[in-house]
Structure formats: C-alpha cells, structure tokens
C-alpha cells in the first residue's frame, strides 16, 4: 500500500510530448480512475508508473521511494492489461505462479497463495485449464488473480473490462469495487467508460492531450467541472455548452467574464409551446430533431437559437410534437470564460447573488 506521486513527469515520443508535466498525488488506498479521450496519454502515464516506459523528465515516487531507476519487476506493482496478457502456454496455475517463482518464493508457500487467491476469485476448479479454454470473465479473473497474488503496493488496471460484454462488465465492475474494499490497496484504473469512471472511482483524473484537466471526486467532476473539457467529457449525453453570445438576450446581464454557458441534459424541462412563462428559467423555443426512447428515459435532440442540444427526460415521451420550449433553471447553468475555464464568480446582475452552478458538493 502506497501513495503514488508524479512530480512534473513528462514523456516525449519522437518529437511529440504526449504527457506534459503531470504533477499529481494518488492517495494511498484510493481507487483513482483516469479518463480522457483516446490518445491523451492515459496508458503512457500508467506505463510510466509501472516502469514499462521511462519518463523523459520528472520523478515518480511510490510510497517513500523514488522509483525512477527501479525495474518494473521491483516496483511492487501489479498490472492488469486490457486484453489480459495471460501467458497462453501456461495453465491458470502457471500464470498465477509465474511471478511468485520469479520472486523465489518456496513451493509450499506458493501452493498456499495460489489456493487462497483462486478461492477468492472463484477459479479453483479451473486451475489446470489453459486460458484459451476460459470465458472472457474467467480470463479477466485470472488476470486479477495473477496481479493480486503478488500482494503489490499498487494495482494498475488499463481498461480491464473493455473487452467484456455489457452484462459481464457490470458484474466485474461490482467485483472490482468489492475487491478494492477488501484489499485496501491503491488502485489506478484507466477506462473509457463513463459509467465505470463514475461508479468505481473515489477520485477521477480527467486527462486531455497529456495534461490534467481536473482531479476530483466523481460527484464533483460531474456537478462541478472545472472547464469546458471536463464538462463535456463527463456525462452521457454530454453537457450542452454554447456560446454566451447566442443566449445573451435570453438571460439577465451577467457580472464576470463569460464566454460559454452550459447545462446538463437532465436539468432542462420541456414545456409545450403555450405555457412558456415564469421567471428564473432560461427559456429557448426549440424544434425536436430526433428522439431516442430508452425505456426509462428519453433523449431528445433539439435545435434552437443556441444550436443543437440534448435533453434527457424521465417522463413519458411526447409523440407528434415538434415545437417545444426548453427551460433551464438559472441555478443549473454553468459559466465558462473564453478559454473554457470555469468562472465560479460569474453572477447575475439583477438578482441577489446566488451561488451559480448546480453543484452542492
């Protein structure tokens, strides 16, 4: 168990700086999720922590040691790969045992460790199978067992569930959460999947183009994004963000530098044309373009003065209606400056200053 600190870590591939002066501390025992678009440097960051890639500059600390010059095998880190990277020629037992043998742990102790671990992950009866005879979920468990058995200080997981189908993914997600609780080890977890990020992490790191956009708890990242990137990246459908210019006339004057305004799809109300009145709402006359009904919820794509936007509604879908008014409560609006940075200080002039932004956390 250990804290991980990256101090001004950068990585240059050829001429391209893919990780830019990252400076973060991953708390001991936390479940930290790294998210970000493809190619933003998530894997590279993980691989530098694991020692599979050497950082171009900066320092990496695990617990009290600077591991800059420590071989991967000596860092006391276990990694679970996207496609499991199981040794196909070894049995499940062999896979789990391999790291232990390298550590020169005596046979009896190994046996015991394997026994314990395979009970935990429910693989006891498959110990003598080859990985290719196992299902996706079972392989995933082997990968976990292989990582766990080494009792590492840090677990690193790079999109470990992305190759599983939806059902299994849900199941494994829960197992991983429970595993983390049980072990109390630091987990660093990369994913593409919103739901995974939100539901699993204590802490989310949003990465873009090699720089950290925000590092915070899931709720804060969702409700209190620090910039347009995070706001748009987290949440499905994404937060609707539009130029302030386009809605200026529908809003009371604002104090502060505001370039963009946003709101979450689920915070808007849809009203039939007629009853478009009442204050404290940003009201936009809109046209419904498409409507996706997903059982419990319906997602509308609408078009209005501010452009296209998604609205999420939990009420029965409207059929046959085209014209509609979208109403967003003022307190659910987010303000960003021209650079896309959140402007926490922006307030509406004519009202008593309220805390803008929907977040309470």
């Amino acid at each position, binding site marked *: 168990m250990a804290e991980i600190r990256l101090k001004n870590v950068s990585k240059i591939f050829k001429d391209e700086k893919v990780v830019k002066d990252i400076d973060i501390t991953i708390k001991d025992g936390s479940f930290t999720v790294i998210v970000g678009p493809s190619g933003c440097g998530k894997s590279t960051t993980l691989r530098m922590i694991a020692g599979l890639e050497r950082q171009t500059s900066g320092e990496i600390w695990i617990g009290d040691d*600077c591991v800059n*010059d420590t071989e991967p095998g000596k860092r006391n880190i276990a990694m679970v790969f996207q496609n499991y990277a199981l040794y196909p020629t070894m049995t499940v037992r062999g896979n789990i045992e391999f790291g232990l043998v390298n550590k020169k742990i005596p046979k009896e102790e190994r046996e015991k460790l394997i026994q314990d671990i395979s009970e935990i992950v429910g693989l006891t009866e498959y110990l003598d199978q080859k990985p290719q005879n196992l299902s996706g979920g079972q392989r995933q468990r082997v990968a976990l067992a292989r990582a766990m058995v080494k009792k590492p200080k840090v677990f690193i997981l790079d999109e470990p569930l992305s190759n599983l189908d939806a059902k299994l993914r849900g199941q494994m997600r829960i197992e991983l959460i429970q595993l983390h609780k049980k072990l109390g080890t630091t987990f660093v977890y990369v994913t593409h999947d919103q739901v995974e990020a939100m539901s699993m992490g204590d802490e989310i790191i949003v990465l873009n183009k090699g720089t950290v956009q925000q590092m915070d708890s899931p709720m804060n990242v969702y409700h209190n994004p620090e910039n347009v990137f995070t706001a748009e990246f987290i949440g499905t459908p994404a937060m609707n963000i539009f130029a302030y210019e386009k809605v200026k006339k529908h809003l009371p004057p604002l104090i502060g530098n505001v370039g963009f305004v946003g709101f979450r799809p689920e915070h808007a109300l849809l009203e039939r044309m007629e009853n478009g009145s009442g204050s404290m709402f940003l009201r936009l006359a809109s046209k419904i373009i498409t409507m996706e009904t997903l059982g419990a919820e319906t997602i509308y794509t609408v078009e209005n003065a501010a452009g296209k936007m998604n609205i999420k509604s939990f009420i029965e879908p409207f059929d046959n209606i085209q014209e509609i008014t979208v109403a967003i409560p003022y307190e659910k609006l987010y303000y960003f400056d021209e650079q896309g940075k959140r402007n926490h200080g922006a307030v509406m002039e004519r009202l008593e200053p309220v805390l803008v932004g929907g977040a309470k956390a």
Partner: protein
Amino acid sequence: MTRSSANPMTEVMPRPKVRNNVRSWTRSSVRPYVMIAPAILVFSLFFIYPIGYMIYLSVLDWNFVSPVKDFIGLANFKGLFQEQKFLEVMKNTFMYTTLTVSLTIVISLLISLWLNKQGKVYAFVQGALFSPHIISLVSISMLWMWLMDSNYGLLNWFLNLFGISNVPWLTSPSTSLLSLVIVAVWKGIGFNALIFIAGLQSIPKDIYEAAELDGTSKVRTFFKITLPMLSPTLFFLTIIGIINSFQVFETIAIMTQGGPLNSTNTFVFYIYEYSFRFFKIGFASAAGVVLLVIISLMTIVYFNILSRRVHYQ
C-alpha cells in the same frame, strides 16, 4: 504530505541505486549483441569469411595447389563473360529457376485450393504430397534418373500405355532441363502446397462471405481476394524457391553432370566443376562472385518489395 518534506528525500536518495542502474542499463544495451553473437559468429566464420576468401581468389590465376598465385585482376571475369559455356550456364540457371519456381507455385496453389479441407482423407493426401520433400535429393535423383530412363523408365512405359512414344527425358538437350524441372517441381509441390494451405486457412472466412454477397464469381474471387490475400505467402515461396533453384546441385551432379551438351549445367555445378575437375580455382571463384552479386541483388530487392508491395494484415 507537503512538497517541502518531499524534496529533502530526493537529495537523500542513496547513490548506489543509480550506479546499479547504470550497470543494468549497459547490460541491456549490450544484450541484443550478446544474443545475436553466437549466430553471427557462426555465419561469419562459415559463410562470410569464405565469401571474402572467394572474392580474393577470383582475381588470381591459381590451380589451388601450386605455390604460384598470379594476380591477374579482372581477367577471370573477362574470360568468364567471353565464354560461350558460361553464358549458357547463366541461361540454364535462369530458365531452370523461372520454370521451376513458376510451375511449382502455380501447381501447388491449385492443388492447395483443392486440398484445403478438413478430414482424415485430406490430411493423408496432404501428407503424401509432402513426402517427396523429406527425402534426400540423392535418393530422389537416383529414383528419377531411373524413372526417366528413355527406354526402360517407368515414365515412358506409362506414356506408351497411352500410345505416346518415348520421350528422351535426360538424354536429349531439348528435354533434359525440363526433366530436371519436373523433378524439382515434383519435389517442391508438397512443401509449397502445405504452406499455401496454411496461408489459405489464415484468410478470414467473412471476407469470402462478403464477396459471395457481392455476387462474385469463383474465378474472380480467386483472383481478386484469395490471390492478393496470399501475397505474403506467395512471396515467401517465390523467394525460397528462387534461392533453392539457384542452389541446385545434387540432381545435376547425379542425374546429368550438366549434360547433355551443357544443357543442364547451372551455376553451382559449373563452379564446382571448374574448381575441382578442371583445377581453375580463380576462374570458378569469379563465377562464384558473379553468383554472389546476383544473390545480393535479389536480397535487396526482396527486402524492398517486402516492405512495400506485399499485403500484410
């Protein structure tokens, strides 16, 4: 956990670790050389050095045992290209190579399309097909020499059954090279077909289904899908085929000795004959150098084509 407490720790970092690391770094940068060293040593000692020696010999006039070694510059090369026989040898080598490689590949491709099926019967037939490949060229040469006997060979006996008159096979300059080609093709088909079958099996099935849905005829599917998908295999076999054909020796030494009328004399046999029957080491070495140049050119072309033209998944 503040920054100020972290900085001193960096400074206290024990140095030995770093030194240890320097050593491991050097080890890792030397490691690939250590790994290739035994192989490269073997190649240098037994292939590269002899080639150098051969190049040295090619500018001498030497009979191999006499103490006199006259440096004669490029005279051997000049002599070589003035010699009718050498030109014939070049021609024979190219003819033999072209015919052998193209026939082997075409026939084995067709056969592999046919035999690319599962089942015991097919496994057996594939095995039978491959069996000539595992048998010594010495045995094969003896066997075929005898099968191709123009009067008493099984082959002519068989042709006679169909009312075809005797083919002179190895005994006439017009058919001798072709006869050697037949032997080489016969021997090579199994190996080639096996690799083609492997290649065919690695083509994804759904591509064929897509083509079927596109209403593609069998022939067009073959030329537009199968063949291009097989291009790496095709290329591999071509190059291996060319190498082997250039190196043909045993069949010639045993079946024809380069005759009749020099019609089956090829590079390697020619070189061997000149150095050991006619005691013209320098001359033979010059021919060897010519062969080497051709081979090197082929290697270069091979790598260039490989990296450019051939389809890889």
